[in-house]
């Protein structure tokens, strides 16, 4: 059994409310001690933050079906490089993850690559078609805790209501991609391309109105409240959505919400370049919306920072804006964007940031062993990062199979030094460790 000590770490552990200097001893796969002692190999980490490994509620790993964009191996490598120890891949693969067989396939492939724990999200409806419920029960038996047709909304209020009700059997979470499809023209060839407003008019691109998100969120909040089910609102992008969720929480609706780094750091202004790397759904919004999303994170209306990591190969993104697919990479930049945009300017404390990136998402989905606390006996799922180190985002250096990061060329604060999954380094000194599985107990 390998034993080592992170000596002089700044331990940031929201689960225990701790942000203080300490030594952390890891023995085998678990944390053995937090305090002043040392044991085994001593790793000097003065000035570095040691936090629970990050947990992403919203990832697209693309496998099975779009292995040209990402595989479970490349996606979990990207996750580890970004400081993640657990990710929740969405169900919009091909075939769709709408039955236990696909869940097991994804889980098995993830275990084989071994760099990051993977908790698949199951589809709400068969084939994401929005009509018949998928077999939630069979998926629950193989570990699914959350269901989503992400990428597509559940359009029918009736189907959504039944899904929320049925999921109560296991107190599972329903996560609906909030887009009123008639308003965004999802089925029309002149469908929405960017945030609706002055800039869309100037650029001659079809608008994606804020109301299309808010109408859907309002509907889902009412339905979830009525049937007492758990709702998760993904990628909150508008000020109106933040306010709707704030009111629902005050009313006692069982709702959680996430925001992406791109929605709290970038505005629609990026679209002026017509570079489809900035094309995402929901779209980049106004400065006021960005401010409201930040405020939602500050007051806890928004529980989690999730990446909506959506890889697309270059030939798909290097197209005319209207033809390019929606989506951005996120796993390898989320921590740094959070530190640069929220922690350094004083919007969130480091403790609050780690809570949103790790502890709260893990708790909300019942992912045990992740998100802290960093206490003796707990699994050693950790990230070690330098909050002061800067780096320039180089798409070619990313571990994802795709290159569509909207942060290319940006200098960001916060560099992952090591990621530890059950005591084993998946990233060490900024480098992905070789064959993660065979490196056990070196």
């Amino acid at each position, binding site marked *: 059994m390998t034993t080592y000590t992170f000596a002089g770490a700044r331990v940031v552990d929201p689960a225990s409310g701790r942000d203080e200097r300490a030594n952390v001893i890891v023995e085998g796969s678990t944390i053995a001690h937090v305090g002043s002692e040392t044991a085994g190999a001593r790793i000097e980490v003065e000035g570095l933050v040691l936090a629970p490994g990050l947990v992403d509620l919203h990832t697209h790993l693309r496998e099975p079906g779009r292995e040209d964009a990402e595989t479970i191996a490349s996606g979990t490598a990207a996750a580890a490089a970004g400081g993640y120890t657990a990710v929740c891949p969405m169900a919009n693969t091909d075939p769709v993850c709408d039955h236990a067989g696909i869940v097991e396939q994804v889980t098995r492939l993830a275990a084989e690559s071994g760099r990051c724990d993977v908790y698949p999200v199951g589809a709400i409806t068969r084939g994401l078609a929005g009509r018949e419920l998928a077999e939630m029960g069979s998926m629950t038996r193989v570990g699914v805790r959350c269901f989503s047709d992400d990428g597509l909304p559940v359009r029918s209020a009736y189907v959504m209501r039944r899904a929320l009700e049925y999921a109560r059997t296991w107190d599972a979470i329903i996560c609906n991609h909030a887009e009123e499809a008639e308003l965004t023209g999802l089925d029309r060839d002149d469908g929405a391309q960017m945030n609706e407003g*002055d800039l869309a*008019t100037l*650029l001659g*691109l079809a608008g994606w109105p804020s109301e299309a998100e808010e109408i859907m969120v309002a509907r889902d909040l009412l339905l979830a409240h009525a049937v007492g089910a758990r709702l998760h609102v993904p990628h909150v992008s508008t000020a109106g959505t933040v306010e709707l969720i704030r009111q629902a929480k005050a009313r006692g609706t069982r709702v959680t919400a996430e925001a992406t780094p791109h929605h709290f750091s970038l505005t629609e202004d990026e679209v002026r370049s017509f570079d489809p790397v900035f094309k995402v759904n929901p779209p980049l919004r106004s400065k006021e919306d960005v401010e409201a999303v930040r405020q939602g994170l500050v007051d806890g209306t928004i529980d989690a920072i999730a990446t909506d990591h959506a890889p697309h190969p270059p030939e798909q993104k290097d197209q005319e804006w209207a033809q390019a697919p929606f989506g951005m990479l996120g796993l390898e930049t989320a921590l740094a964007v959070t530190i640069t945009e929220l922690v350094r300017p004083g919007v969130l404390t480091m403790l609050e940031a780690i809570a949103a990136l790790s502890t709260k998402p893990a708790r909300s989905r019942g992912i045990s062993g992740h998100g802290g606390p960093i206490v003796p006996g707990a699994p050693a799922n950790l990230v070690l990062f330098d909050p002061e180190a800067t780096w320039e985002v180089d798409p070619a250096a990313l571990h994802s199979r795709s290159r569509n990061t909207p942060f290319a060329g940006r200098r960001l604060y916060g560099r992952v030094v090591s990621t530890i999954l059950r005591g084993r380094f998946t990233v060490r000194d900024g480098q992905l460790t070789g064959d993660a599985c065979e490196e056990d107990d070196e």
Partner: protein
Amino acid sequence: MTPHLLSMRDLTADDITQILDTAAGLKDIALRPIKKVPTLRGRTVCNLFYEDSTRTRISFELAEKRLSADVINFSAKGSSVSKGESLKDTALTLQAMGVDAIVIRHSASGAPQQLTRWVDAKVINAGDGWHQHPTQALLDLFTVRERLGRLAGLRVAVVGDIFHSRVARSVVQGFTTMGAEVTLVAPPTLLPPGIERIADGPGLVTTTSDVDAVLPKTDVLYLLRVQRERMATQFFPSSREFARLWGIDRERLDKLPEGALVMHPGPMNRGVEVTADVADAPNAVITEQVTNGIAVRMSCLYLLLGGEDARDADDAATTAAETPPVAAAAGRGAEREGLR
């Protein structure tokens, strides 16, 4: 001048004046027995048309040929595009073949701007999606200036489908940059949010849905094509209702002040936005717009491609020497300002 011609928003009032002055000199070439000058001899221009177009493509082709450029026509239907080649690969192919300028028409907004990332050639936007159609706006400005002698202070009303119109966006920016006031007239469904803020020129932009109130205070009435297929997406209930509420017929035409112009970028939907007798009225300058389009496009090509070395300056001087004094002055002006 800008390195490419992508959007009216990129052009200053001085840029526009330079283009129009140069076009005024070049227009007379069309009156000669041999309608050709050697200005762009040895230069290759590719007309890359991903969307159907009759008048714009022919107009560009005539402009290029009258300047003696070598012309390649590439339309989506007869090329490898139909076999699935991407815009980027097509661009890289043209780049490898060494074309000097690409004139692009595309149904996707922003495609011309994207093209500039992949090629060294000068890019001229011949219409992209709902975004821009700068040479249309320039030929309209040219036509109005030639007819009315000025642009500043004019009252321009643009009527019709503003929402889906690259022409509307370009014309609004062009006229306001030159100090004219623009009123956009359409049902609210066809007035996209913030349209009155797309221009930052000195001229004001306002919107209204009441065409009859606007007509008596209009110096230039600019009509836009209304596509019947828009009805299917609920912008208005029927072309008959549209014609009754916003179409220009003889009765409405008579509400215009004496000397006001009627314009249309074509193709017209006679009977919807404009009746046949209005389209053919004496103050309608629709065919003049077409004629002027060639000179304006010659001017744009010349200013973007010519004037880069002594040979071009000589050619310009040759052109100037053979044309009336106005053109000569334009040629000299162009040289002085160091055209790019």
